[in-house]
């Protein structure tokens, strides 16, 4: 079109801006055909971590309950709100507390923002644990996903670390005394080295405590370290491991699904089936070359029939869960203020000085034996969790909640027996005490080895071994063990949160605490 002037070309481009921009953005034209809907998924940097097609099982709300997604979205919210808080926060022992006060009182929406940050952070713990339970009970740690489960355990440690480090930043009484408790947990190997009489040569607990606090007492150096952990180091690792976590799900062909998948009538309320408009191959043969690649990625055979296009099915579901998460956090943050107590004061101990709630189970164990509660049992629990996929290698029943009828019975039994025995142990300890109360001079080593926490763990292991023997299945043993682990996490945490008062003594309710 040689006769068009440059100016009229410019005008035409200007008028066409919307379409040309969208076309360049989406690169697949208008999303009318299945082909364009497919290409938008793998042409987009953010979307291509997801498959072009999604299995219907994945979209059934009752399969995942969106728990992993919720945890991820909470993380997104926590990062964004955290960056906003960083604008005002200053990690100095003189200023931190005042800055929090300013955020609450004069920053527009600051109180809400802080609440959102706090509650999404703690929400991550709740939903992460629920997500772990979902993955476990549906047997989704099997068939090539073993290592991804281990990465999940690493992510769990990071999420706990992030929450804990954030708890210390306001530098109020809660922060300061939680910092000391954590420092003491870090120091707890001293109980062992003391018992062996080698502390003066090999004080590993003391070394790590000093490394963590940046000195022998909590102060500016500790706050600086905790701050760097919270805003830089831990988030960086979380990003990396999260990316690997997602990447591996994608490489493993998306979420797990039962081998024998049956579509049911109700599925149509979650998904829109592919709009197949003729073609050379029948529906279940629509895969292209890339779908024949090595590995588990593509859905083959009849499973193709059970997949739907990710655009819009999966994206809509994700958007809905994101909105649900956002609304949930907002409503909670609107009504419940994040706590902020008096300015940190090393001379006025909180009594009881309590760790944040998600560690109160550990603190309960810590009250039996510092080493076992601080290092031994949590270390054993994490190791046990990480090893589950390697010790239970049965490949059946993947993608089915509780595997089968027997699994449901085993889980229920473990739940009931675990609850009774765990509470029984606590009742015993509260009423009768332990070795130190009966024989004041008993060697510490004996208590480290034989204490209520260890006895509970030994019981869990024995019960699960018994289940394995009876059922002849490692999966059943794992279900029993994991169920009891969850039960005791909840019970010990509730014990530490609601029933422990000053000097870690038992009280039915906080209203009975001696008012100091």
């Amino acid at each position, binding site marked *: 079109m040689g006769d068009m002037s440059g100016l009229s070309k410019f005008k035409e481009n200007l008028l066409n801006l919307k379409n040309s921009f969208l076309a360049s953005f989406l690169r697949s034209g208008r999303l009318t055909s299945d082909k364009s809907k497919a290409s938008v998924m793998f042409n987009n940097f953010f979307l291509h971590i997801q498959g072009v097609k999604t299995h219907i099982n994945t979209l059934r709300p009752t399969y995942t309950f969106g728990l992993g997604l919720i945890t991820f979205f909470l993380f997104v919210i926590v990062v964004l709100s955290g960056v906003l808080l960083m604008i005002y926060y200053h990690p100095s022992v003189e200023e931190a507390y005042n800055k929090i006060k300013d955020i609450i*009182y004069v920053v527009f929406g600051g109180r*809400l923002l802080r609440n959102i940050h706090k509650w999404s952070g703690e929400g991550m713990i709740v939903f992460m644990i629920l997500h772990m339970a979902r993955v476990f009970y549906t047997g989704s740690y099997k068939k090539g996903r073993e290592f991804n489960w281990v990465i999940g355990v690493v992510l769990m440690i990071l999420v706990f670390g992030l929450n804990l480090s954030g708890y210390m930043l306001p530098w109020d009484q809660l922060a300061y005394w939680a910092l000391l408790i954590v420092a003491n947990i870090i120091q707890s190997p001293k109980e062992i080295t003391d018992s062996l009489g080698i502390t003066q040569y090999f004080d590993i607990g003391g070394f790590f405590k000093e490394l963590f606090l940046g000195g022998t007492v909590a102060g500016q150096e500790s706050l600086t370290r905790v701050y760097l952990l919270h805003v830089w180091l831990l988030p960086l690792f979380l990003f990396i491991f999260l990316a690997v976590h997602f990447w591996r799900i994608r490489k493993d062909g998306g979420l797990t699904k039962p081998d024998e998948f049956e579509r049911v009538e109700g599925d149509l309320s*979650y998904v829109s089936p592919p709009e197949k408009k003729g073609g050379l191959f029948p529906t279940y043969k629509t895969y292209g070359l890339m779908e024949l690649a090595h590995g588990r990625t593509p859905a083959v055979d009849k499973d193709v029939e059970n997949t739907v296009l990710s655009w819009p*099915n999966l994206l809509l579901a994700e*958007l*809905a869960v994101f*909105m649900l998460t956002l609304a949930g956090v*907002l409503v909670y943050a*609107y009504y419940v203020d994040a706590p902020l107590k*008096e300015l940190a004061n090393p001379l006025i101990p909180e009594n009881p000085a309590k760790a944040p709630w998600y560690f109160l189970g550990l603190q309960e164990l810590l009250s039996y034996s510092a080493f076992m509660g601080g290092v031994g049992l949590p270390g054993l629990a994490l190791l046990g969790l990480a090893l589950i996929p390697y010790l239970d290698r049965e490949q059946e029943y993947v993608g089915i909640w509780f595997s089968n009828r027997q699994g449901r019975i085993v889980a229920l039994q473990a739940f009931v027996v675990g609850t009774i025995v765990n509470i029984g142990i606590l009742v015993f300890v509260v009423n009768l005490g332990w070795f130190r109360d009966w024989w004041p001079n008993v060697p510490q080593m004996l208590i480290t080895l034989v204490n209520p926490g260890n006895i509970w763990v030994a019981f869990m292991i024995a019960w699960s071994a018994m289940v394995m023997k009876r059922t002849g299945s490692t999966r059943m043993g794992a279900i029993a063990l994991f169920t009891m682990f969850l039960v005791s996490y909840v019970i010990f945490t509730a014990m530490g949160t609601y029933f422990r008062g000053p000097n870690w003594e038992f009280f039915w309710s906080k209203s009975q605490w001696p008012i100091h």
Partner: protein
Amino acid sequence: MLSRFYLSLLLLSGLVFIAFITLATYRELTPEWKKYQAEYREMLIKNAKDEAAREKARRIKIEQQQIYLAGLKRVDRCMNCHIGVDNPLMADAKVPFKQHSGDYLKNHPPDKFGCTICHNGQGRATNKKEAHGKGRDTHWDFPILPFKYIQNSCAQCHDYETLRHKGGEMVVKGERLFREKGCKGCHKVNGIGGDLGKALDGIGSQPIAYFPMRHVVGEQTTYNWLKQHYLDPRAIVPDSEMRVFLTEEESDLLTTYILTFRTTEVPREYRRIRYVPERRVDGESLYKMYCIACHSTGKVSVYDEILKRTIPAIMNPAFLKNADDGTLRKIIKEGRKGTQMTAWKSTAAGLTDGEINKLIRYITRERPDEAAEPFGFAEFKTDPKHGKELYDVRCALCHGEKGKGGKGALGINLTNPVVQKELDPEFLARTVRDGRSGTPMPPFGEEGLGLSDQDIADIVSYVRTLAQKK
């Protein structure tokens, strides 16, 4: 066709989100201080004298008020609500619009002093409850000061000579009470004072958690704790040995003064303390400062329910006749181990030798001219067994079996180390012979209840065997 389930979930959550974002925005846009500022502006517009003033009032912006005080390390936002505090037109307005009373702001302009330096409260907070810091759930250690205690803040910058004449009577009176009720007999301040009670340095800066609040009536504040504790120490701290007898008004005054003991100092540029030479302290003042809380007038010896022992009458002429300055000095300097009597020497409770001498001169001012007739204890050959027989009949009624005194017993506990080791038997013998007029202790000598000197010597020798078992 989109999934109905996820679409409705998205829409519902979206609606909830929008609703709560709206609510939150509304809440942020309408803090309570904005209502006060709007009301203030209305009042100004209504009461304006002329059109110019009215126009000026109309132009007042409703905005965040804040005084940033770098030197005091404070940020005060009180004027968000107390907006008329420096406006003379608001002299008769209601709180919070009312102008500050008196002419305090003339010499203490708010932009230099702020508010919380005198009134306490949480300057950074922007709502009433948290700014006033009332209630333990606000987690603020220094709630707004009740007006009756406000003068303690004056003493941060002003000396007591100035305060006495210029509106600081209450803290001055409180200081006087502190000096004259013998508080330092048990409490150290700056390292000087007895050690039965807690040191008082920085007590006014202590967080609320420092005080056991369980039995405090009303708001759990440091102020209420102090006051109620002066009115009845054992109602607040059940096992307290504190001897304090104050009226309601005196309790308020003392509370005002005690709150001046702070750990924080305001910067020099704020202080207006004239360093007047320290007042010469005479024996009487020293007695009031350190001794009076236990010994009161010093004339009568009575069993004290609080200290669970008999407090000796140290200004009783009969006692003074018998106790020479050396004995008194020794008791005052070393104290009496096993009793509440503090060792007052400079390395312990911190009195100088000069001050102790002044005290002795004050205590002994009514000592009779003639010294007691010597007893000559050393010349007697004593028989403790005979002494015990006499003791059980004549002495045990008041001093208890084996000299242990006891609840309700009139006499002092004789087993304490001072009677046993430090006091001269001669002194004891004279006391038994001559008695202590003004106390229940009668003279047992031949001119009194008729014991022979030999009998008395035997009793003393028996008493000296009653040493406290460890």
